[in-house]
């Protein structure tokens, strides 16, 4: 038996579409044209990691479209967060049970996890495994850069036949019955005026904040494309290429805004009317095409409060899960 066979791994039996390995992204290299990538819903990925006692930024799977089917070669602990995928677990003994989102689950060796489809079309789910998906680090991250074709597993979305290495873990955290609750998108994206806000007309300002924006089916990890009444500039501009960040709302010449996603390019030349605040970026992972979204203007203070509230939530969750695990002992007897 080779060393690879002895190591815990996940065999991909069915890969669905655009299922990829993601962590909290690749940072500090935007000056070299290297995009951030990472989980679109970083909150959900962190929840799923904390449920297993993983570091919050351990690599997991981002699920976009089913059906996905995975076989675990060794006993493992897993957690699912984000949108519900109608998961079921088949054990080698012939068991077939539904799997609850937001809870840690211990699987026997040989178990097969089947993920059907997202309960909300276009929304993403996250799967983590104790020890994390142990693909090699590429430029400081395990995230897949689907556009540039590197990182994650073989630099691409998963395919049937792939074998994903699972890392080792010292944690034996078994979380309590309460689990974690997922967050439902509000379809309201709080935003700060962008660097080019004053270049837009008064009616563009009004239109931007007041109209419902329909989500275009062309949306992806690079950006959320929106349909509505086009936004006009006071006068045409030809801007020099400048750094852009996920959350920036660009307006190309057709007047229809694009909210940049985690896979966005590092530079751009379109005027930016606004930037969605960090605390609301997770919603981009869950907005279905043909549903609507609003932008709500907020102050820097509100943006910061919202972000700190999330940080505190994750810190409280870490503590709560550890305390509950201690109180309930180790029901699996390990």
């Amino acid at each position, binding site marked *: 038996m080779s060393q690879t066979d002895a190591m815990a791994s996940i065999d991909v039996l069915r890969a669905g579409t655009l299922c990829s390995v993601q962590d909290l992204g690749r940072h500090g290299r935007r000056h070299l*044209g290297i995009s951030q990538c990472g989980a679109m819903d970083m909150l959900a990925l962190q929840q799923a990691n904390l449920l297993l006692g993983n570091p919050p930024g351990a690599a997991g799977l981002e699920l976009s479209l089913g059906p996905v089917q995975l076989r675990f070669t060794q006993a493992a602990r897993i957690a699912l967060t984000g949108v519900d995928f109608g998961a079921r677990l088949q054990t080698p003994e012939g068991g077939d049970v539904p799997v609850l989102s937001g809870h840690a689950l211990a699987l026997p060796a040989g178990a097969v996890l089947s993920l059907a489809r997202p309960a909300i079309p276009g929304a993403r789910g996250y799967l983590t495994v104790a020890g994390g998906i142990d693909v090699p680090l590429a430029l400081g991250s395990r995230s897949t850069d689907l556009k540039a074709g590197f*990182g994650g597993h073989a630099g691409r979305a998963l395919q049937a036949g792939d074998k994903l290495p699972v890392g080792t873990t010292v944690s034996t955290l078994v979380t309590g019955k309460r689990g974690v609750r997922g967050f439902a998108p509000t379809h309201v994206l709080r935003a700060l005026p962008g660097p080019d806000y004053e270049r837009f007309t008064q009616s563009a300002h009004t239109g931007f904040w007041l109209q419902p924006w329909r989500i275009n089916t062309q949306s992806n990890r690079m950006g959320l494309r929106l349909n509505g009444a086009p936004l006009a500039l006071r006068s045409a501009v030809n801007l020099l290429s400048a750094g852009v960040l996920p959350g920036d709302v660009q307006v190309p010449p057709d007047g229809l805004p694009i909210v940049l996603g985690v896979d966005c390019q590092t530079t751009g030349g379109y005027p930016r009317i606004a930037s969605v605040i960090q605390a609301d970026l997770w919603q981009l992972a869950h907005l279905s095409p043909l549903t609507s979204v609003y932008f709500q203007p907020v102050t820097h203070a509100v943006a910061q409060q919202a972000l700190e509230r999330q940080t505190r939530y994750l810190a409280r969750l870490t503590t709560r899960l550890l305390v509950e695990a201690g109180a309930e002992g180790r029901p699996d007897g390990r």
Partner: protein
Amino acid sequence: MNAAPRITRLGEDALLCHFTAPDDTAPPLPVQQALWQLCQRLEAERAALQLREIVPGMGNLLLRWTRPPGSPCPFTSLQARVLALWRACEAVAPTQRVVTIPVRYGGEAGPDLEDVAHHCGLSPTKVIALHSQADYAVYCLGFQPGFAYLGGLDPRLHTPRRDTPRLAIPAGSVAIGGSQTGVYPLSTPGGWQVIGHTALPLFDPTTEAGALLQPGDTVRFVPAQEAT
């Protein structure tokens, strides 16, 4: 002394500095050179200033910071630091790195060389000579990992993009688009005129930096017979 940049906030954790008039068609080279120097000085203070990203653009600069919970917003202090550093920046490329890129021009490697020559009213040999005798400055990177925006293309070689973009330009393609020239690190659809190919990897995620070129580098193209 340098004129003060226009500084705007970007989202909650970044700022943008504009060193040229915002509607300029291209930043003057001395401005960009001073900007590279500013980037180096900020890089030296990256940890102290808690900077996550230092991203030069064309005559502009994006800075993204980390803000520990409960700490005050660093925008005002960072802005003051940028202005202080900028005043002392000079229009020189201080530690200039020269990167030589061997290029196989024309033929299968450069299917648009003849078209470019025709458009410019030059022989293909002359196009190769002009393209390979200039020094190009890496203004900044973007679009793809390792893709450099190069300044310094001879105006005699300016050629509009193709009417019909190619569905896939191979990685390593050396191309001209309007007044710009560049090398594609990765395969991409695009309308630039492909005049040659290099086997030198411009993006390699297994290396420390990932990208061969850095802002401020000087690039020279050298005609070569590359083994394929």
